[in-house]
């Protein structure tokens, strides 16, 4: 069955600290992988995507993610978090129909 697991429901980091949000997937074929961010009351904004090629992909707002086929993972990272990064982050897999993880809510302490 196709699925996405985001093990961390809530994460709190201090401003300026590094961040890693975990994502594991189960998908029959070579996956298309995505990270979206959702601020309160807003829609989903695409941060980055992986289709093929270089397994380290760069996105907007200083985020990057690394595809590791052997671990079925696509973790999102940022070297230095800003207060404005506080939001909910969703990992997704698929092509025509996206399957989303449950999301990780990020809080940033000043």
């Amino acid at each position, binding site marked *: 069955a196709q699925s996405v697991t985001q093990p961390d429901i809530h994460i709190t980091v201090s401003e300026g600290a590094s961040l890693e949000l975990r994502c594991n997937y189960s998908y029959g074929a070579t996956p*298309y992988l*995505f990270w*979206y961010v959702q601020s309160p*009351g*807003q*829609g*989903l*904004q*695409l941060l980055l*995507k992986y*289709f093929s090629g270089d397994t380290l992909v760069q996105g907007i707002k200083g985020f990057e993610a690394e595809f590791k086929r052997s671990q079925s993972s696509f973790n999102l990272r940022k070297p230095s978090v800003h207060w404005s990064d506080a939001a909910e982050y*969703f990992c*997704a897999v698929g*092509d*025509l*129909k*996206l*399957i*989303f*993880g*449950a*999301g990780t809510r990020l809080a940033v302490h000043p």
Partner: protein
Amino acid sequence: GAGVSQSPSNKVTEKGKDVELRCDPISGHTALYWYRQSLGQGLEFLIYFQGNSAPDKSGLPSDRFSAERTGGSVSTLTIQRTQQEDSAVYLCASSLEVTSAFFGQGTRLTVV
């Protein structure tokens, strides 16, 4: 407009009434998607339109839900005889390619 536009942004309706939710995709985008976001179920795929092909309705939760896309552009999601469990945020997305979907800000539906 530059992005996906959804209307209304909020809708409160009485149980048993019908509602229509509208989505204006990004101009030129051939694919249009509807998703539902609720506390208990997370983000769920509902329906997908691609060009003139028959829509993929596999995610619609019941026959009370239907959607159409007129002229390959604007889409309307209709929920008949609304129930309290239909309360959720309904998100529309469009894309030019198979991937890279851009989402609207959603319609928050509350059934009372």
